[in-house]
């Protein structure tokens, strides 16, 4: 009862603090929206992002025309073959202009003079890609697209020249031996056709198939990872800030008064824990509701699992916040320490990016943070659509951490 009285007082103060409430809910919602829409190109299919690439065409010929038509049909590329010169006229793209544009466009394609000719004659034919080494994505994409085409061309050329050479050698030997004249034109034409056929339909191909990983066909959006990611981070920020009200009570002297009342010290701390925990729960549930109803975040296949995980995370966060408040002497100290701990845990534990992209040893280290346990469980639920069973270890660890933190905070808090 006293615990509830203590907590109710904190909640009443909390509800009167409008800027605090805004910070608790609105800030994470804004950050989630920004982070998710910024990354949406990497997740949503259908409308693929296009890269504008300058192209300098110095050559004329059959092969060049074909290459251009292939490139124009490549959905990821948007070719820029003209530019506006100083006098305002549209001119054909030049090497000089392309070099200037690379800074901006990150890559440019040059088809040098004689390209078609060289390909036809089976001589060394080169395409040039200008790249900006700073960018890691666009030059790779452009080079890939060109390599695919040039390897097809090379394949056709090699097959053609090997075939024709073989036929001609057989023809000449047969003529020598038998003294007859043979016309291999038909065979050579057939080789040409065949090589063209195989170029269009390579015998070895990679076929990409989409698996249906859940009952419902579903596409992952950034929200399934960003909502839990930022919810966990902001709940940690929120609870650690709320827990410093314990230090505030000591600084202001209300804690001294509370100690003269017929209530135990444990109920004073218990009340703080309860109000912190309820605040954390409220914040998390609101963020997930906003995530679901406003951003269309998928809630996974196990609502019970999701709720349990939210409760476990809020509990662990409360424990951590109480521990920080108990160890620190002043509020200023506590806010500094909280910020350091929460931000490093968010980076390390996978609030900002998925854990699987970091080195394996770091993934192991990351599991000292409650964020890592929480985030991997949220990923299991919301990205892989797994059930309660898959998150039981995380939930146990989170509750365990909470209990240990709370125990330590009760032991370490100095009332006077």
């Amino acid at each position, binding site marked *: 009862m006293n615990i509830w009285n203590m907590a109710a*007082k904190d909640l009443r103060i909390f509800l*009167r603090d409008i800027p605090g409430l805004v910070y608790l809910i609105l800030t994470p919602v804004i950050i989630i929206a920004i982070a998710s829409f910024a990354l949406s190109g990497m997740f949503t299919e259908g409308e693929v992002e296009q890269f504008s690439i300058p192209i300098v065409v110095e050559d004329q010929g059959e092969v060049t025309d074909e290459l251009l038509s292939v490139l124009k049909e490549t959905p990821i590329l948007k070719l820029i073959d003209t530019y506006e010169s100083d006098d305002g006229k549209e001119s054909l793209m030049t090497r000089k202009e392309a070099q200037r544009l690379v800074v901006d466009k990150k890559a440019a394609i040059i088809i040098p003079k004689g390209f078609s000719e060289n390909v036809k004659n089976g001589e060394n034919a080169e395409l040039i890609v200008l790249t900006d080494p700073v960018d890691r994505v666009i030059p790779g994409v452009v080079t890939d697209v060109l390599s695919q085409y040039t390897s097809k061309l090379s394949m056709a050329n090699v097959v053609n020249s090997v075939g024709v050479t073989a036929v001609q050698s057989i023809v000449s030997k047969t003529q020598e031996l038998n003294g007859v004249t043979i016309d291999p034109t038909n065979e050579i034409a057939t080789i040409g056709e065949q090589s063209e056929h195989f170029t269009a339909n390579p015998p070895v191909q990679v076929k990409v198939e989409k698996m249906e990983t859940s009952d419902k066909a579903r596409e992952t959006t950034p929200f399934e990872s960003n909502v839990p990611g930022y919810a966990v981070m902001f709940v940690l920020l929120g609870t650690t800030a709320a827990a410093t009200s314990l230090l505030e009570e000591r600084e*202001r*002297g*209300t804690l001294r*008064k509370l*100690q*003269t009342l*017929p209530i135990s010290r444990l109920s004073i701390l218990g009340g703080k824990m309860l109000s912190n925990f309820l605040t954390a729960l409220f914040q998390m549930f609101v963020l997930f509701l906003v995530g679901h109803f406003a951003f269309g975040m998928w809630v996974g296949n196990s609502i019970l699992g999701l709720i349990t995980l939210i409760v476990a995370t809020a509990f662990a966060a409360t424990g951590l916040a109480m521990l920080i408040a108990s160890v620190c002497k002043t509020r200023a100290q506590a806010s500094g320490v909280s910020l350091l701990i929460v931000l490093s845990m968010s980076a390390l534990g996978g609030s900002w990016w998925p854990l699987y992209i970091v080195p394996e040893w770091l993934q192991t280290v990351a599991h000292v943070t409650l964020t890592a346990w929480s985030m991997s469980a949220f990923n299991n639920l919301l990205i892989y659509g797994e059930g309660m069973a898959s998150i039981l270890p995380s939930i146990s660890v989170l509750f365990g951490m909470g209990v240990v933190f709370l125990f330590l905070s009760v032991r370490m808090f100095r009332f006077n």
Partner: protein
Amino acid sequence: MSVLLADVDQNDEIHVGGSISKNKIVSATGLSKSFGNFVAVKSVDFEMYEGEVLGLLGPNGAGKTTLISMLSGVLRPDGGKATVGGHDILKDLNKIKKMVSLVPQDLALYMELTAYDNLAFFANLYGLRGKLKKERIHEALEMAQLHKYANKKVGSFSGGMKRRLNLAIGILNHPKLMLLDEPTVGVDPQSRNHIFETIKKLVSDFNMSVVYTTHYMEEAETLCDRVAIYDQGTVLDIDDTSSLLQKHGHKQLEIKMKDVDESLIEKIKNMKNVDSVNYIDETLYINSSELLERTEEVLRIIREKGLVVSKFNVRESNLEDVFLKLTGKKLRD
């Protein structure tokens, strides 16, 4: 000794001033508290009785707050023993907490909440419910003269209003012993009088006892039945004001006149039982334990010398003088 003390409980009758018999509410022996190497309270002994207002008069840093913190269960003493209402402060803290209330020097208020919410919060923690709770809150608001402001945020209150609310919270549980830690700091004279009236009323209505901590000697003189002169964690003397004045105070003769020379001062100094003579700012200050007898002699010499007295006064000594005598320093700088 300790066995004897442990046996003392609130039913032990102590006879004060002959006929009136009173119950003991606080009894402390050898109470001490240190912070690291610093000894804040040094082996304090004192007793007080139901219905008594005891002043704890001492300068900043004397250890007043530390002493009453031990009586209210905020701090655990390092040594010594004390009982409050017959209960040991080390063993029966929970019983003590129900019958004692501390009005802390630092305002123990939640500024974000209204006056009513503050009172309701503390009333809840005292276990008050329903009608009784409402009555007590009403009574406290009345005492603090804050009825009109009950639903205003405490943060918007003036310093004096906050002080009054801080004090009002202290009566919610109708304590048998109230520990008031400088409750009138920053309060205007009118509010201060109101607070005094309230304290007196509580004492007479509920036979409540009060420890009143202050460094204003006027407050100690007007409000308190007995005063403890307290400095550096030690009670130097504890008695009612008039006895303290009698024991440690001297009346002082103040004569304002011009042209006093060394020979006159020497003459007065050599009189029987004259403790000190000072001539400052055209005023002669004379201390003596036989002031009346000496006054006659002094005035005779002045007349012989043909000097003109422009002002004449016999000043009663006050607790300030007693404090100066006992500690060698002033209450406040």
